């Protein structure tokens, strides 16, 4: 087998793929499937599963060649949960059969995935979740009942990664099991969850006697919390490490408005804008430094703070922007209930940005929990006192 771990070999294989499946004359899905089968989907995945066991840092080599040739991509923003969270978890904990069944259509986007983790009663304290999975009569599978919330793409998804309680008599972290849930099961009911922006980017998912075969369990029974850590760690990797140009984030639109509309300027807004511009640039440089550390193989703890910084900046900058707009700041573009497929924090108008960014300090770990994580894991300060560690889940107060 040829060594595929260098850039030259990856370019050669990419050229081969392009020759066999010219993008101009190949159906989009056929091309994506062929790319997966050639091991060029995610090169760091194993052979036979869309990869070549090559270093992850070489993926941009393939992506650049394909983009230059006008090849279709798999619309990664539409299938972010599958790519960023489900796939690494299936790869790490799935059986051979599960990997072969799930990864190819996940990567090509033929099957959309969603995540059934948070519950109305289990937000920051996710491990307290109460959705129950019990063995069905013949012991071949599981029956699931409960309610999940903040599920993006649930209305489009074919599959979900799900964590549910399989043992209520042990402390909360130990009684959880991780499953792949079929979203077409008749017991799955998806209801849009309307947000303060007027639209419904997320859903509530009600699970009533949903049947899951045991073959769709990921990892051991009662081992779901550990499996979920893989998912959640990958979520945080996906959030850090992006490369932004100067003014590439939320500061861009407000800087543009400032330049184009001198009549809106006041001395107070000027000082605040410049202060936020400096902070946004410092945060951008931190992101770039983090990226350079990853490329150099020296990951630092800096990534833990990226989301904290961007949440606060997004909120303050968009708040300033609404104020800058004066009379227009009194308006909002559209309150109509809509179901966007893609979420763009900087999309739409200033009012939307202001309202949507309120979620940035809640989703993916609240800023308060993230500050605890930085304090404990980076600075080594003592952990929060725990009163739930040795108590059976069924005896916890709720």
């Amino acid at each position, binding site marked *: 087998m040829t060594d595929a771990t260098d850039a030259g070999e990856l370019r050669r294989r990419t050229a081969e793929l392009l020759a066999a499946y010219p993008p101009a004359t190949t159906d989009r899905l056929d091309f994506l499937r062929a790319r997966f089968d050639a091991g060029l989907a995610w090169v760091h995945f194993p052979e036979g599963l869309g990869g070549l066991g090559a270093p992850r840092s070489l993926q941009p080599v393939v992506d650049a060649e394909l983009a230059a040739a006008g090849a279709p991509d798999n619309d990664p923003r539409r299938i972010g949960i599958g790519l960023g969270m489900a796939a690494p978890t299936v790869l790490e904990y799935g059986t051979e059969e599960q990997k072969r069944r799930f990864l190819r259509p996940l990567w090509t986007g033929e099957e959309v995935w969603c995540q059934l983790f948070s519950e109305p009663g289990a937000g920051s304290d996710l491990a307290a979740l109460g959705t129950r999975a019990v063995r069905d009569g013949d012991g071949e599978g599981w029956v699931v009942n409960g309610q999940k919330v903040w599920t993006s793409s649930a209305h489009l998804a074919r599959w979900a990664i799900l964590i549910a309680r399989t043992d209520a008599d042990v402390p909360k972290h130990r009684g959880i099991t991780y499953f792949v849930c079929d979203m077409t099961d008749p017991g799955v009911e998806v209801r849009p969850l309307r947000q303060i922006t007027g639209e419904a980017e997320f859903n509530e998912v009600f699970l009533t006697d949903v049947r899951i075969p045991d073959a769709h369990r990921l990892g051991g029974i009662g081992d779901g919390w550990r499996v979920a850590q893989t998912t959640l760690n990958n979520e945080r990797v996906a959030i850090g490490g992006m490369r932004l140009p100067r003014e590439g984030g939320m500061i861009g639109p407000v800087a543009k408005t400032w330049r184009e509309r001198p009549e809106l*300027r006041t001395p107070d807004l000027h000082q605040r804008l410049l202060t936020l511009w400096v902070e946004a640039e410092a945060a951008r440089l931190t992101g770039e430094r983090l990226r350079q550390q990853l490329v150099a193989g020296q990951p630092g703890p800096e990534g833990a703070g990226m989301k904290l910084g961007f949440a606060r900046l997004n909120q303050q900058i968009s708040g300033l922007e609404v104020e800058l707009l004066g009379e227009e700041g009194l308006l909002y573009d559209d309150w109509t209930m809509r179901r966007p497929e893609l979420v763009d924090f900087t999309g739409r108008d200033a009012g939307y940005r202001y309202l949507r960014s309120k979620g940035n300090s809640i989703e993916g770990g609240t800023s308060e929990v993230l500050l605890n994580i930085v304090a404990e894991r980076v600075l080594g300060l003592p952990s929060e006192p725990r009163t739930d560690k040795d108590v059976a889940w069924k005896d916890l107060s709720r």
Partner: protein
Amino acid sequence: MSTQPDLLYSEDEVALRAAVRDLLTDHCDAPGVIARTESGTPHDRSLWKALTEGMGLAGLLVPEERGGQGATHREAAVVLEELGRAAAPVPYLTSAVVATEALLECGNDELLAELASGRTVGALAVALNVAPDGAHRTVRLENGALHGELTGIADAAAADVLLVPADDGGLYAVAADAATVTPQVSLDLTRPVATVVLDGAPGTRLGEAGPAVRRALRAGAGLLASEQLGLADWCLTETVRYLKERKQFNRPVGGFQALKHRLAQLWLEVVNLRAAARNAADALATGSGDTGLAVAVAQAYAAPVAVRAAEEALQLHGGIGMTWEHPVHLYLKRAKADSIAYGTAGRHRAALAELVDLQAP
């Protein structure tokens, strides 16, 4: 060629940091620095000798063929991080960076080589608060001799030679012996300022003052951010260490969430400051077209973070932080003075407004 700044530390830079830190651990302890502030010689000459004659650090910015080490602002920034961490009372920023940059612009190789060796300490006779684009005072040139009084000159008391801007637009080298240098009672005990009185002092004209002063102050402002980074990092690290050890209510104080969150927030700001300071040092080192912007961003960000780090350190230390004996006051005084040095954050934001076209109303 990459247009991205290199924001990491190279292996050589890491080794340099370790060597400087070792030296400071052995020769610059806090009780000694505190005691020295009230002695007649606030500057530590033996430490300066070890850093310069021993390690050659005064010549980092000077090319080898002109008597220096031929390194760059990136290495000087690493030295400054460590000096900031120790609140070391040595004229490194003022002599090895600011005065040296002025001489590099003027092209006086003899004096430049003397400063690079560290045997001569230089000070630019421009008040410490002046920003790179700011106006500064000059002395009168009359019949070939210099007359006038300048105030707020950092580290002048340690200087052997003063670089003095005169009213003919020239920059003059004046031997410190030929001037009257009087220490001012300074907020920052470890980088004190002084008045310089020239009463018919002889001076050697080095060149045009304008570009030399601008260049010197720009490098000073940019690399001060690295010193502020070291200072802020000391405040954070020392406070975290103390709060793990200090017990009240039968538990380590560092376990209280209100304090954990404040320290985590400070950590985040120090992380951002590191990126901004590395960006400025790299821009100065590579002569990037973005240097003015990188320096303005670094200074506008660094000053408030360093002050906050020192203020948080003091508050979170409780009563002990308010004592003369504990070193946190050295850092608070340095951080507050640094927030004025080479232009306040507000001055740098104003410079930025021009550079990135975010014009005032």
